[in-house]
């Protein structure tokens, strides 16, 4: 059983702070039992290291294959999702950007209005109603006037057409009378000639 102030195995593996190491060294200097124990530990350590590393019998290596290599975009994407700190940073950056954009484009806060005067409100409402009624009347009158104008124009057009038709009829009738008169005259002349020839 070791009587050292600190574990000799901690000393062997360099796990002690410098003041603690000095305490162990001082103790081992004066304690034959701990000195022997530490020597055995050192001996064990050095004996273990006698088993040297072997060389690798065959070199390990990989061949580049473009088919399996990710695209630059793919690498960036995988790099982002494959790394928690990068993903966290990206999230924080997006949140910050959203806050900045909101700060610039947020709607203006509503300004609180002083208490309104009822008489003034009534006057304003009345004025608005009057204006609305006048506007509605004007629009109605305009619509009626447009309708009357259209009706009058249509009546005039119909009257003109009728007048044109009557006039054409009168002209046709006059021409018929003239033709009839000419036929009568021709008949009269033929009759007169016939009467003159009959006594012979």
């Amino acid at each position, binding site marked *: 059983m070791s009587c050292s102030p600190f574990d000799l195995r901690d000393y062997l593996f360099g796990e002690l702070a410098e003041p603690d190491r000095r305490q162990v060294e001082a103790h081992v200097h004066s304690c034959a039992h701990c000195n022997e124990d530490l020597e055995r530990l050192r001996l064990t350590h050095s004996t273990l290291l006698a088993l040297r590393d*072997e060389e690798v019998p065959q070199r390990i290596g*990989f061949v580049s294959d473009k088919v399996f290599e990710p695209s630059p975009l793919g690498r960036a994407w995988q790099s982002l999702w494959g790394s928690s700190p990068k993903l966290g940073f990206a999230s924080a950056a997006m949140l910050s950007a959203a806050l900045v954009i909101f700060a610039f484009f947020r709607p203006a806060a509503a300004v609180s209005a002083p208490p309104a005067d009822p008489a003034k409100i009534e006057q304003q409402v009345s004025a608005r109603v009057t204006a609305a009624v006048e506007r509605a009347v004007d629009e109605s009158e305009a619509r009626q006037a447009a309708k009357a104008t259209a009706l009058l124009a249509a009546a005039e057009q119909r009257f003109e057409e009728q007048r044109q038709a009557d006039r054409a009829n009168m002209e046709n009738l006059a021409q018929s009378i003239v033709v009839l008169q000419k036929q009568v005259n021709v008949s009269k002349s033929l009759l007169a000639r016939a009467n003159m020839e009959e006594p012979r």
Partner: protein
Amino acid sequence: MIFRAVEDADLIRKARQGDVEAYNLLISRWEKRVYNYLLRILGEREDALDLSQDVFLKAYQNLRKLDDPARFAPWLFRIAHNEAFSAFRRRRPEGETLGEGEFPGLDVPAGAGAAFPIELSIAVTTALGKLNPEQREAVILKIYQGFKFEEMAEILACPVSTVKSRVYTALDVLKAQLAPLKSRGVT
């Protein structure tokens, strides 16, 4: 080590952009460590190599999920740890667990005889085989891979106190096995 971490981060960045050559360079920096970690856990060179390839393939497929490139090493070994224990589950019948001393026998390293006594390598291998799976992996990560306890906790997905307890308990077992051995003059 800092420069290496900086260069690794640069290679990771390029590999994430689809630069396979940069990833191959990154592999060349880490393949020996990953291979030896898996070899010491699995005890089979062929399995260790196959799993190493799987580890680097999975790492490439998931490289974009690595948030901090400076944490590449524990992240990579976490993948290796998962692969190793998936392999263990495939090897052993369902419901059967590994007991103490039942670990697959670790072969003596091929090059050990040239620089170190073969007896020492056998002694270390045998001592590591006395540990349970968790203790053995903890020792491999701490002694051979040089990870800090915090990094080991990340790799093994358990508290630092648990990791520390495994390493220290294993160290006591190994000390009992190896320290008297060496002091008796095996080397």
